[in-house]
């Protein structure tokens, strides 16, 4: 049915409401596992986050249904690897792939190359050296809902992220097999997702040629030991470790080596951040200079206790979290139980992999009842740490010191 729908889309270039209803099964109730308790009527607030179970996924927080935006509940981050069924989902257009036939699926390498390639899933698996790596990824807008003033976009809390183990072919090896011509400056990536209209810009993101050939990025065909779920990019996904997920193109079908930089909506307008440190700008005076978002900023996030948790006085509380950076390496995580006045070093778990998150923990025994503002901050090997104020109009790259409100009861 997926192909039919997309062929129809291509044929008409436009999908009216009638076609929408015809193309979707009208069965929302059965799939909505737990409702947030807000009636689906007009005039509701912004906190409607019902649970939903999509194909090959478990119950996730549904930020939006079509195209799907699904957020991972915090408790999955108590493990080193985020299970495939719980890994967050983000697509740009309703024309996302719903059917892939490996007999016909190909990843093309075209543009400024000596030998254009058409690689099947098996070609990628068998003709290139397999590389394994564990890498953290997050949506550029992860945690956007916490910015004040609020900004438009997917209203994620902290769950548009995950850590997974990938196996794939080095992008470098694939490009070298095609033979990059002299004068190449960029390599750009497209998936099979289709823009709904002729005028809609096809999602495509570039890396510089040096970045693409540095041997770090892979074309992954395996995620946590299994094929990718369709909604996470089956059959192959570009993994750009240390960089935001906007570069991790799903259902990767087209790799173009370019002698001129790519200019499109996704490069020149969307996914851009101020050039200032921490992507910080004044809401009343937005920055004039912007640049595409790229690498992860250093950041620590509480995983447990969860927001608005209630704990008991004089009872031990295990605090756990994750810390991320661009691959330089997390060296220190500190936590504060008094809103940032005093800080204590947390214990770092072992290093999982260069581009993985690093987990951390500490024990806390609150001695007084009342309200506590817990904070955490990470520092990486380059000395990059976190600040107490950050805002930008896209709601991107949130890396402000997190404050977690906890109530201690008698």
């Amino acid at each position, binding site marked *: *049915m*997926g192909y039919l729908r997309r062929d129809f889309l291509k044929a008409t270039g436009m*999908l*009216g*409401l009638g076609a929408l209803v015809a193309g*979707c*099964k*009208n*069965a*929302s109730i059965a*799939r*909505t596992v737990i409702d947030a308790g807000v009636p*689906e*009527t*007009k005039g*509701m607030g*912004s906190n*409607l*986050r019902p649970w939903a179970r*999509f*194909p*090959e996924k478990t119950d996730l927080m*549904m*930020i*939006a*249904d*079509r195209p799907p935006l699904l957020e991972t509940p915090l408790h999955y981050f108590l493990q080193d690897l985020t299970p495939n069924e719980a890994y967050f989902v983000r697509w740009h257009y*309703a024309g996302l792939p*719903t*059917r*892939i036939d*490996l*007999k016909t699926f190909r990843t093309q390498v075209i543009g400024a190359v000596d030998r254009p390639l058409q690689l099947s899933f098996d070609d990628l*698996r068998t003709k290139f050296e397999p590389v394994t790596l564990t890498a953290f990824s997050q949506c550029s807008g992860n945690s956007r809902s916490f910015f004040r003033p*609020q900004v*438009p976009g997917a*209203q994620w809390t902290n769950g548009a992220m995950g850590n997974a*183990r990938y196996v794939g072919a080095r992008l470098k090896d694939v490009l070298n097999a095609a033979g990059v011509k002299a004068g190449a400056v960029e390599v750009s990536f497209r998936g099979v997702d289709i823009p*709904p*209209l*002729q*005028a*809609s810009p096809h999602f495509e993101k570039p890396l510089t040629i040096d970045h693409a050939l540095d041997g770090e990025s892979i074309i992954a*065909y*395996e995620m946590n*030991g*299994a*094929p990718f779920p*369709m*909604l996470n990019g*089956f*059959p192959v996904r570009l993994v750009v470790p240390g960089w935001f997920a906007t570069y991790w193109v799903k259902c990767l079908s087209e790799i173009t080596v370019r002698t001129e930089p790519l200019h499109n*909506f996704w490069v020149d307008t*969307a996914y851009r951040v101020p050039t200032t440190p921490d992507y910080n700008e004044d809401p*009343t005076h937005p920055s004039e200079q912007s640049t595409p978002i790229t690498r992860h900023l250093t950041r620590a996030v509480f995983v447990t206790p969860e927001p608005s948790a209630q704990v008991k006085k004089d009872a031990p509380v295990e605090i756990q979290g994750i810390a991320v950076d661009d691959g330089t390496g997390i060296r*220190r995580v500190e936590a504060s139980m008094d809103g940032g006045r005093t800080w204590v*070093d947390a*214990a*770092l778990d*072992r290093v999982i992999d260069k581009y993985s998150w690093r987990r951390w923990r500490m024990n806390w025994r609150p001695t007084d009842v009342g309200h506590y503002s817990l904070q955490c901050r990470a520092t990486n090997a380059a000395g990059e740490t976190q600040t107490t104020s950050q805002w930008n109009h896209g709601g991107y790259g949130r890396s402000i010191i997190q404050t977690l409100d906890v109530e201690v009861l008698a």
Partner: protein
Amino acid sequence: MQTLRVAVVLLCVAVAMLAYALWGRSGRERSAALPTPAPVIPVSQLTQVKPVKEIELDYHGPDLPPGPGQDIFATQCVICHSARYVLNQPTFPRKIWMAEVHKMVKGYGAPIDPVQEKVIVNYLVSWHGKEDVPAPANSMPR
């Protein structure tokens, strides 16, 4: 002789500083390291991959609230995204909804003419927005 003595003292100080720096760093890392469980290495299931994968996506609602502009929203905006994309936004002031709808036209190529743009903004403000708050009289532009 004096020069040699000074050199020896300086060397001792340098060695002591280096040792302290190294010890201090490793000490902090060591004190921070807790026993953690051995990593779970997933077993590859790639051999089980089937040649065709197909999923079916359900409709999750909600239906659009009635009101002037509902018909235009239902035919033009829903081409690319469902109504839930609006529902999950904060109840923005009019100027932000205007910018958002215009972005859909300019950036994403939504087939919405300027008249329809106004109708859609009115519709969004009517059920999921608010009118712009005039700037306080005493606020000074920075």
